[in-house]
């Protein structure tokens, strides 16, 4: 008998669902209550993945999520830590979620231009409940149990909508803070972003937290870009080591739309980013940049799918990893070119640096191509620092250790320099320096 590839969620989920479903936002609405029940059934049908599921070959998540954790209420977060994570400049609008619940008194969404609306799912539940089902329903073909789990258990989320041609100057920051100082918990936040034709938005997303009690965040994002719309989406993930962060985004681009997504995973016991980009209109463009730096026993998994569905689209993936300690980094990127997607131009690069003999990198860059007039290529490397570059620096008087630190930092720098918001870039650089062995010495010597 073959071993099962997926397993049923622990009964604790079912218990929690039965207990909590009348208190979840929108529970008074039959349609939404039914959607949550249906979502829960789908979770049970699909089952939670073991490493025998191909997409989860290198990442075993079961041990961390098999049992349900309580859905916590917001607590008072350490304000200094929050403030240190503010990005986007003084003009930036900000939504702050603590334990997956929006904290309006810390958030700032005033003075938005006409045609731009920022709200939360729980606010919608009170004011426009009829919209909730449409905003939280996963696509019918959705095969991820976690996406359905989110649909069953969400307690909060952000809805950002821009009408045609609206181009706010100020960035919008979403800040997710998990408080695991006293109690373990899980949250299933949801992010809905809709940009009308020609609209433009700079979205910053930060994940952080405090405490070692254990937190599981199961974020699901649904992003739709209208014709010619442009989204710059920058994500910094720096939760504590006890945290499990699963972030699944489905991004759909109409003709001529443009997506820039910069994502840095710089913390967390287990972080998995599932990015699914659908280029649904000709001339759409997606630039995905990623940096991940798992250390000690951390585990980062970058799972990327780019669907070239229409002709003449362009996509570029650029992911770099630095792996130390006993950490493990996984990259699984796939470019899919559909039969009609002629004149596709797609590129994918994944470069990894191993800092320790106990670290591991597993990379799986895939191409799946059904059109002939295309240019698709990818490159993947795993290795150590270039000895000739080290020699160059040593010949100029840098000690071996400093030269190594500098080159390691520079390796990450190639991704950092693509980050648009200078505040966020600074925070990322700070975090990278803390993780580069000898990073402190680099600063002390004034080399960075």
């Amino acid at each position: 008998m073959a071993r099962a590839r997926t397993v049923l969620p622990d009964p604790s989920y079912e218990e929690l669902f039965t207990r909590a479903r009348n208190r979840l936002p929108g529970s008074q609405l039959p349609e939404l209550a039914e959607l949550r029940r249906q979502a829960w059934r789908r979770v049970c049908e699909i089952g939670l993945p073991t490493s025998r599921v191909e997409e989860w070959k290198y990442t075993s998540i079961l041990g961390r999520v098999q049992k349900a954790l309580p859905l916590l209420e917001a607590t008072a977060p350490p304000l200094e830590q929050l403030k240190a994570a503010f990005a986007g400049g003084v003009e930036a609008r900000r939504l702050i979620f603590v334990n997956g619940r929006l904290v309006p008194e810390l958030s700032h969404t005033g003075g938005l231009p006409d045609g731009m609306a920022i709200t939360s799912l729980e606010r919608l539940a009170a004011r426009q409940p009829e919209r909730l089902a449409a905003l939280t329903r996963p696509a019918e073909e959705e095969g991820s149990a976690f996406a359905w789990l989110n649909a069953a258990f969400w307690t909060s989320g952000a809805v950002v909508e821009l009408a045609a041609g609206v181009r706010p100057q100020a960035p919008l920051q979403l800040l997710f803070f998990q408080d695991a100082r006293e109690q373990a918990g899980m949250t299933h936040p949801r992010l809905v972003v809709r940009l009308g034709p020609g609209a433009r938005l700079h979205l910053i997303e930060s994940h952080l937290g405090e405490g070692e009690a254990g937190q599981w965040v199961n974020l699901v994002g649904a992003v739709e870009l209208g014709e010619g719309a442009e989204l710059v989406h920058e994500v910094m993930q720096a939760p504590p080591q006890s945290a499990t962060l699963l972030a699944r985004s489905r991004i759909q681009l109409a003709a001529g739309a443009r997506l820039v997504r910069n994502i840095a995973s710089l913390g967390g016991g287990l972080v998995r980013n599932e990015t699914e980009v659908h280029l649904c209109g000709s001339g759409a463009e997606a630039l995905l940049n990623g940096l991940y730096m798992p250390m000690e026993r951390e585990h980062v998994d970058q799972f990327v799918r780019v669907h070239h569905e229409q002709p003449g689209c362009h996509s570029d993936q650029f992911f770099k990893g630095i792996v130390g300690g006993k950490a493990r980094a996984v990259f699984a990127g796939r470019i899919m070119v559909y039969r009609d997607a002629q004149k596709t131009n797609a590129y994918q690069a994944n470069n990894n640096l191993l800092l320790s003999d106990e670290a591991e990198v597993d990379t799986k860059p895939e191409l799946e191509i059904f059109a002939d007039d295309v240019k698709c290529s990818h490159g993947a490397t795993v290795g150590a620092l270039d000895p000739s570059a080290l020699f160059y620096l040593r010949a100029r008087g840098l000690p071996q250790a400093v030269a190594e630190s500098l080159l390691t930092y520079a390796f990450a720098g190639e991704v950092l320099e693509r980050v648009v918001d200078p505040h966020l870039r600074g925070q990322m650089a700070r975090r990278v320096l803390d993780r580069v062995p000898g990073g402190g010495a680099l600063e002390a010597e004034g080399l960075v």
Partner: protein
Amino acid sequence: MSSAIETVREVTGGEYKWGFTTPVEEETAPPGLNEDIIRMISKKKGEPDWLTAWRLEAYRRWQAMEEPKWAKVHYPPIDFQAISYFAAPKQKERPKSLDDIDPEIRRTYEKLGIPIREQEILAGVAVDYVFDSVSVATTFKQKLEELGIIFCSISEAVRDHPELVRKYLGTVVPPGDNFYAALNSAVFTDGSFVYVPKGVRCPMELSTYFRINAAGTGQFERTLIIADEGSYVSYLEGCTAPMRDENQLHAAVVELIALDEAEIKYSTVQNWYPGDKDGKGGIYNFVTKRGLCKGRRSKISWTQVETGSAITWKYPSCILQGEESVGEFYSVAVTNNHQQADTGTKMVHIGKRTRSRIVSKGIAAGRSNNTYRGLVKIMRGAEGARNYTQCDSLLIGDRCGAHTVPYIEVRNRSAVAEHEATTSKISDDQLFYCRSRGISEEDAVALIVNGFCREVMDELPMEFAVEARKLLGISLEGSVG
């Protein structure tokens, strides 16, 4: 080298030229598989008890296994009970000399362009011919024996050199390795066996020619090559099959073992019947090939030109166990019409400073799907290991698919693994350049494809290049079938 051009021409336009059957009296087992059939095969071949037991053990394992489903190929379920697991040309006794071979069989090989005698003299290639499941002739045996090289069918090896067979059989591909390897271990009927003793450099290319002839049968051959310390051998393998509406199963196992400083070069031109234009018929080629670089500084090199088969499921691999051992994989896979190929390699780096190189060229035309699937695994102890992988795909027409699925797993910081892949079509610029210099469109395409494959074609041994051209060239028109 023009064989690349011809290969492509052949698969993109030409008809299958080797689709004839030979009216040889065949001895076949009734369809189906059970322990009695296995005992019958074993008994017919006069095998020792340990081998019968080994087969039965493999069969029991196979029964508990599931067919692999992960490859990017689609086919209706195979009824393993409808296949006959043994087909042999009927002969009273083993031929004393080549002249004793059934003239029909000799004619078959002549049709294929490899007259047994002529080939051996002209090309100086020692050939073992496997007709359906049974080896029919081995040439040049005497000369090889003088050097201590054993080159014979595996049945003969079981009889004459049981200690070698027993020592190495199943050590690289264990009977329970995978579904098809287990099936092969249970029912394999023949194949080639090579042993090159210490310090001997095999003076000629060794070659096996495989042909499936009988209907309703599968072919399950097993090849075992052992290169003892400091030896060298180059081995060539070719295959064809008749045209039939049904799908026939070919599930071979090849095991290579290279001891200290030994080198094995294994080249394949696979040209099983690919099915007709509508995808009817053709061979299912589900093959397990693996080499073990057991000794230090040993080397195993796989070169394959895959043009045939309705479905190819094949991953010639190298286990780089010895320090500083080297593994290579060069592949051209061409698919057309409804062919599906899921092929690639595995390089497992265990020893220190092991090196591997993978060059894969996939060409997809018609409605075919061509997948490269490979694994590069660098284990914790493989200090200073090095891998370079390049896989390029070329698409001809807009109904085909080309896919690349590499897995790279690295657990040693001093190791370096590099992977590069591209997918493209023949660019209009390249075509225009050639055409403006008076080269016809057809020749220009051939020229460009030739350049695309060159890195791999150059790896084919000279003798084989001649045969490959013979096999694949359009010049064969009218000379066979």
